[in-house]
């Protein structure tokens, strides 16, 4: 039995961490941005006495209850895994790496409290106070994700600590840990991604419903609110992504070389679309656009910009060939899909500017229905670029992944257990959300019991609205 259990834990620990994070990151955009969109619908419902908007807000909050719960428990697993999979990393660096998580815990607490109040408060609380209990969810979601990303950014740009001669952390400056060099770019990139992906994902469900002929006002609102949020976030994200890439060029040249598939240092580096790095260090396949990678890295020096190649560092300090190919492919996927999503947002914006309505074409709805899944793929690809591109380091230039891993050789067993459990939870989440949606449809709008705030409260709100006019 001991022989069966004794399997090198490194690949399994990496696989388990990657799998659980890949799962959790899908729920993050919903946790961060859905409350904001729900509040838009809630506000509209109260201000304009719009029953469709109010129904939408209430139902969204019920879906949120499910996705927030799954996000909360899968997030908790990650806090276990830091220790279970990477105990030497935590033992060595916990005093620095852990600081942002202290603040994250604070925001998560706040979020959990107000999610509970908001979701459970529909029937009995007064409308406007109830609306305001939703606002802390939005703020806590933003600051919470900034805190988590600050920890990840610290792994890319470790700062704020002093080591003694044996390599132990003897002094920590929490401010420098949190506000490390990579943090502003990565945090902005993730928060905007949460709004982008959350918006496209939710809108895609309503786009699919509209294609099936449910063209009532309720579905229209369910599409327009999240899609507008996503359409605003997309161009912002392109700008932030460009800035972050340039930060990586300046500060993590090895990661940048993997991203752009640059085996040797040179100027006039082409931007290779797709393509493949071979064992002998040559690049085959793909479509090279001459000089573009150099030009994008620093437009002021144009194609003369020198891009450091993978061979600038010894092989044990850079991603393997396979990892490099993964990073580059994911980079192409992220940029490619991101551009398509941007074009979709432009289509939507132009229609509003010139026709004062959303595009009427079924092709637009089809594209929007696919955009949800595409946005999730874009998010996953971007995250893989960030994580695999950092290999072999867990703390950039300080600690390697294999030095951080647990000594427990049974990780492969927990890997399979986690995959099976998560597959069940993931499938069930989708089935439950669908079943809820069917039940809501069967109820056709409000039932007596379902009325938010109760009939009297709603009238009260509308009376107040009248008064304020």
């Amino acid at each position, binding site marked *: 039995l001991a022989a069966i259990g004794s399997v090198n834990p490194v690949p399994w620990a990496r696989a388990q961490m990657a799998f659980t994070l890949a799962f959790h990151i899908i729920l993050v955009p919903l946790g961060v941005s859905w409350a904001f969109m729900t509040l838009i619908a809630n506000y509209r419902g109260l201000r304009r006495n719009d029953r469709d908007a109010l129904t939408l807000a209430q139902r969204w909050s019920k879906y949120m209850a499910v996705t927030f719960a799954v996000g909360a428990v899968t997030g908790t697993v990650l806090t*276990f895994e830091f*220790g279970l999979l990477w105990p030497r990393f935590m033992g060595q660096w916990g005093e620095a790496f852990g*600081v942002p998580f202290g603040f994250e815990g604070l925001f998560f*607490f706040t979020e959990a409290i107000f999610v509970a109040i908001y979701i459970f408060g529909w029937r009995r609380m007064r409308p406007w106070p109830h609306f305001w209990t939703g606002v802390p969810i939005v703020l806590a979601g933003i600051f919470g994700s900034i805190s988590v990303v600050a920890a990840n950014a610290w792994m890319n740009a470790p700062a704020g600590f002093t080591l003694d001669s044996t390599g132990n952390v003897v002094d920590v400056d*929490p401010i420098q840990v949190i506000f490390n060099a990579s943090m502003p770019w990565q945090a902005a990139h993730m928060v905007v991604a949460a709004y982008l992906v959350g918006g496209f994902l939710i809108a895609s469900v309503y786009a699919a419903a509209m294609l099936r002929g449910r063209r009532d006002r309720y579905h229209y609102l369910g599409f327009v609110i999240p899609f507008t949020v996503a359409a605003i976030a997309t161009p912002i994200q392109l700008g932030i992504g460009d800035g972050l890439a340039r930060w990586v060029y300046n500060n993590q040249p090895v990661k940048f070389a993997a991203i752009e598939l640059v085996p040797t240092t040179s100027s006039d580096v082409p931007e290779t679309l797709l393509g493949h790095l071979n064992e002998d260090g040559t690049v085959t396949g793909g479509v090279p656009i001459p000089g573009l990678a150099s030009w994008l890295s620093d437009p002021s020096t144009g194609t003369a910009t020198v891009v450091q190649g993978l061979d600038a560092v010894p092989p044990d300090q850079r991603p393997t060939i396979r990892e490099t190919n993964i990073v580059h492919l994911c980079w192409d996927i992220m940029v490619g899909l991101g551009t398509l999503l941007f074009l979709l947002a432009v289509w939507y914006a132009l229609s509003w500017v010139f026709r004062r309505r959303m595009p009427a074409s079924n092709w637009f709805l089809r594209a929007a229905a696919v955009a949800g899944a595409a946005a999730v793929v874009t998010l996953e690809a971007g995250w893989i670029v960030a994580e695999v591109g950092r290999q072999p380091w867990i703390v950039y230039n300080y600690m390697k992944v294999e030095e951080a891993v*647990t*000594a427990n050789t049974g990780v492969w067993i927990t890997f399979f257990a986690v995959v099976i459990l998560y597959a069940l939870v993931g499938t069930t989440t989708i089935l439950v959300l669908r079943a809820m949606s069917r039940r809501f449809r069967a109820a056709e709008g409000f039932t007596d*019991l379902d009325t938010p705030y109760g009939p009297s409260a709603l009238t009260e709100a509308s009376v107040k609205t009248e008064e304020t006019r």
Partner: protein
Amino acid sequence: VSTAVAVVLLLAVVAYAVFGGADFGAGFWDLLAGGPERGQRPRATIEHSIGPVWEANHVWLIFIFVILWTGFPEAYASITLTLFVPLTIAALGIVLRGASFAFRKAVAKMQYRRIFGAAFAASSVLVPYCMGAIAGGIASGRVPPGGQTGDPVHSWINPTSILGGVLAVATVAYLAAVYLVWDARRLDDTDMVNYFRRRAIVAAAVVGAIGFVGIFVLRADASYLFEGLTSRALPLVILGALCGVGALVLLVRQAARGARLLAVVAVATTVLAWGVAQWPYLLPETLTYTAAAAPTGTLVALLIVVALAAAIVVPGFILLYVLDQKGLLPEEGVEHEGVVDSQARPSSKLKPGSR
């Protein structure tokens, strides 16, 4: 500074035991509530009681982990290396429990509600057992310091761990039953008041019996802890026992108030007693909290987090509990209730207005 952070860690463990523990205990009674017909009313009371608060209560665990790995990284590394198996089971159990509870609320069909209910209830017993076993492994000095791996099996399958696990399950069940008496009284449901009152009394007796056996187990298996419990932690042990007995008397005499507070104090002082008994060690007799502590900058940052939590989270928590206790946070899903009612009690249709 490290003392302050160690105290915060201990208080966070107390909070998790008192708030989160009761949620687990409610799952224990859910498990024992019987078939769908017989168990429908106790389950409804349980769902009503823990529905709005479980996620917030659950964050205490994350808080404990964060303080441990940031404030005392060496201890965290040693614990996670050695107690790999029970921690993994607890993590998976938490996923199963949280997801199932949310799913059960969201689905209408009794068949699915039963599956999710079973997963929720079973994991509600599994997780506190693992937590208690982990506490037992730490308290009996089975986790070596210095980020080394201790015995992967005997660190959590040993007399103190078994005692810890069983005691944890019984304690959370006891705590939950006492809370549920109070919740049922608030709902004016006399049947359920008596239902949970009987169970609280039985659970109290069981906790007392386990505690009595525990004296001998700890004397044989965890000498440092036993010595601490019988010396510097003795006042807390006595206070906890007195409160437990007091709560039992109040429950038996059907007193209107006081039992809940006494039960909370009893559990809180017992957890505190554990901490005081193994003071100043995080890992008894090998790693003190001062030796494991992070640099001052980190500890100050943690204390700032705690101060902010007192300013932001505590008022939020009070608001949540006040709204919940005032009945302003009824169940989130309303439609399914009607569906379930009509399936479980077909006769309810005959009595319009009974709701």
